[in-house]
């Protein structure tokens, strides 16, 4: 019956195999608490390297965010010698990470007053680290060919006359207004009701589905009305045209069920954990000083998507072309 114990022996042997062999390794020992060495190539941050503690950057999944994060990571690693851990998380979940030290930085935040109230005002585990310089716009868009063919479609008052065009298999007798990722801020159901529009909100369910739909609408010249936002890399490929809703005024969106106005302009900002902000790390100053324009972000985002560069290469390309901006962040 010995042979039947083979799996057990195997496991034991494998265990011994893994446990053995100490000695000098490329890992400088198993569990030293030595400060981690930068994986960057130290572009003149010799002294700063020791002072920069590693930090965790949440990675929300839209490409504009990836662009910001790539540039910040590249500068922090090459100029300051920090180690940056990027963790892919949805917005809401990333905020939860401030409380238990899992997340130090969110580099592009779109408003979220409910989360600000909970984590910044009540629990005090996070702080605002100033605007990124990007202005976020949310609204309803049509593909460019439609705006050319039906110039008055960009006024919401005319949407009902065009509702027929937007009928799809999903919206029944009404026009279809396509929404995207459930994690994005949207008042569209309330807007359709309160503006008396003959439309039905259909939930595509992901950013990818929304972009594919707009892309096909422009390629095949089919009608489409959908939720979209800027800055977004896709706009540099297909310049979608925004439909004007009743103008936004302060507080017109206070009651989510009675909203009848356009989305506000978002001053996108950076959120950092309180411990990171108070750590005195040079990286905390870098995050505070980080600002750039929508064009900057769209360019880096285009490198990543249309030109199929890796985020690191895209960041390197942009940083090398914009030394003055980077220098200003590091002062």
């Amino acid at each position, binding site marked *: 019956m010995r*042979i*039947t114990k*083979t*799996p057990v022996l*195997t496991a034991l*042997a*494998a265990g011994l*195999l*893994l446990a053995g*062999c100490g*000695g000098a*390794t*490329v*890992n*400088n*020992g*198993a569990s*030293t608490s030595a400060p981690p060495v930068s*994986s960057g190539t130290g572009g003149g941050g010799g002294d700063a390297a020791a002072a920069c503690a590693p930090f965790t950057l949440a990675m929300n*999944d839209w*490409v504009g965010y990836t662009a910001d994060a790539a540039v910040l990571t590249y500068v922090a690693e090459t100029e300051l010698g920090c180690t940056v851990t990027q*963790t*892919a*998380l*949805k917005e*809401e*979940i*990333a905020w*939860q*990470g401030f*409380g*238990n030290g*899992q*997340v130090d930085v969110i580099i592009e935040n779109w408003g979220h007053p*409910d*989360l600000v109230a*909970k984590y910044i005002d009540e629990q005090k585990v996070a702080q605002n680290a100033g605007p990124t310089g990007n202005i976020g716009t949310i609204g309803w868009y049509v593909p460019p060919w439609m705006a050319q063919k039906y110039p008055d479609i960009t006024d919401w008052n005319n949407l009902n006359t065009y509702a027929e065009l937007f009928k*799809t*298999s*999903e919206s*029944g007798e009404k026009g279809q207004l396509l929404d995207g990722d*459930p*994690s994005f801020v949207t008042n569209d*159901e*309330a807007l359709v009701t309160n503006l008396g529009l003959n439309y039905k909100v*259909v*939930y*595509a*369910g*992901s950013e*990818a*589905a929304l*972009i*594919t*739909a707009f892309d*096909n609408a422009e390629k*095949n010249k089919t009608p489409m009305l959908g939720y979209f936002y800027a800055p977004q890399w896709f706009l540099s490929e297909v310049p979608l045209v925004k439909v004007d809703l009743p103008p936004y005024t302060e507080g017109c969106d206070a009651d*989510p069920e009675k909203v009848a106005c356009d989305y506000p302009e978002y001053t996108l900002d950076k959120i950092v954990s309180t411990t990171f902000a108070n750590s005195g790390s040079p990286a905390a100053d870098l995050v505070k000083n980080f600002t750039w324009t929508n064009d900057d972000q769209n360019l880096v985002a285009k490198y990543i*998507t249309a030109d*199929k560069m890796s985020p690191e290469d895209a960041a390197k390309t942009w940083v090398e072309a914009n030394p003055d901006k980077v220098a200003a962040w590091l002062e």
Partner: protein
Amino acid sequence: MTATLVGPPAAAPAPPARHRAVSVATLAVVGVLALWLLARVLLAGRFTLALDTAGLTPLHRDLNDARDWVDAHRNTNAFFVYFLNYVQLGVEAVGDLVTGLIARSDTGLGIPRIGWLGLVAVGTWIAAAVGGLRVAVLTLAVLLAISLQGLWEPATDTLSLVVSATFFALLVGLPLGVWAGTSDRVHRIVTPVLDVMQILPSFAYLAPLVLVFAIGPASAIVATVVYAAPPVIRITAHGLRQVPPTTREAADSLGATGGQRLRTVLVPMARRTIVMGINQTVMAALSMVTIAALIGAPGLGLTVAQALQKLDVGTAFNAGLAIVLLAICFDRVTTAAGVRAETALRSGRNRRRIRRIALAAGFVAAAVAVQLSRTMLWAAQVPDGLPSIGPSISRGVDTVTSWVQEHFSVITLELKDWFSAAVLNPLESLLTGSPFFMVGLVLVVIAFVAGGWRTAVTALAAVAAMVGLGVWGDAMVTLAATLVATVLVMLVSIPTGVWMGRSRTADRILRPVLDAGQTMPAFVYLVPFLGLFGPSRFTAIVAAIVYAAPAAIKIVADGITRVPAATVEAATANGSTPWQLITTVQLPMSRSAIALAANQGLIYVLSMVVVGALVGAGALGYDVIAGLNQQERFGKGLAAGLTLVVLGILIDRTTQAAARRTRTTATTH
């Protein structure tokens, strides 16, 4: 074997009593359907319990409050401080240990303790030890292919997640499975819990898990364990229960104690089944990697999920292919281990000795490789000199998908519109537009006809729960899409399964394709389908078919193969044409397999509901995803997840009862 001349057994005439029961049942169903249509017309649009996508009920708000309470008391409440936080720390410690060992360490260059060469050698050696030479060669090929694809690093991350999760799943699952296999009471308690664990969409428990265990390895591992533990528990219990009672009695008569009986008789006799349970658990763990990526687990799943954001089908496919390769490798190694558990006992002494010497030599070689990978940089990382096939795979897939989209999207969009208007919309409006008590009554009556009083009571409880959870309207939309998808799955899998069951060549060609369809993460084909069909419910149905059909096809093919050869020969000798043979012999005799295929197809389709919401299915799946992503929708998402479970159990019980009935009416000879 001489073929005895038995005529093809037509479906044996059922006893008359049975006939009467069936006709009463038919009458009941027809009556209820008539009543339903009447109610649909008279009460059109009333009592439909409709709720806007953005709407909430008081229950959903209460669940939100409960969540806020947990968030605030995580470090003060005793249950957390003395229990849950320890679980989190323990799981994290194991996860970090495995990750540091094979994926990446927190020291120096971030190179793991066992580098590339070492891991390849150890992996191959383990495959040789538990499975034999052939699977060792396969493992080596897979590990090298992944290195060539340029995905070694994410693959080691995925590997460490699967290893850690499998460790915990077996730690919990094996003892529970043994216990459920030896005690009837435990078996009765455990079964419904396992049903819930397997039907509950993983998206639905991501949000609560992150709430309890925070972001990080612990949540990812626990989420994977919840999904991966049920198979090993179920199959282990099943294996122990299959040991013939006479064998148990023999052991008892020799005076064996309970523990001895287990060790010396039950476990050895059920060994092969238990290994199959472990196999299923590993496969389930691997299929969770893309979902775990949503809560920050690094690895191949994350590569797939991020590529989806950029609509980069090629990159997603490349990473998906690596997952498929890993899955095939794990599957073959564990299957071979199960077979060896049987054959090793019978092989000769000499062969055993040769094997042992070979393994010892391999062990030494692996130890050398590990040592090299710990001391030499060239061995610690994937060698630079290797050709890279990843980019060309990506480019090839991109070219193919864009070509297909360009040439077919006009036709496919037409198809989607026609199908939605002709099939999906009528069924959906019938379900969503009828009064809820009427639909509930129909479901209960169908359950009664299928399985008698007990099933009917289950159905009644399920309907009540669905009404209480407050997302009835969405549940009806999801039910309509699920039913349509399941019918389509069966339309695909019966002919394909028959073809595979009748032709060895077809089986050999199709099986790897089916394996790939089952293990390729759905995220990979979502984007191409979006290009073909646009965001719609139909797109989600097509994705569900791709995922569910392979399992159903395999079950049907298995049923056809199991029809006794003598019967088939007899029918052929009697001059049956192939068509007659299929319709009068093979299909009737594999009726219970087909019923089982329908049941499994439904469960698989249901597990795709949430993924389908990413491409426009909306309804329950959308509620679940929104609950994961927005504070105020947490409660509704949880309610939607529970509704999916209730719906799944209702459908599962009804179809299983129906399957049992076909088994009792079909008399096999």
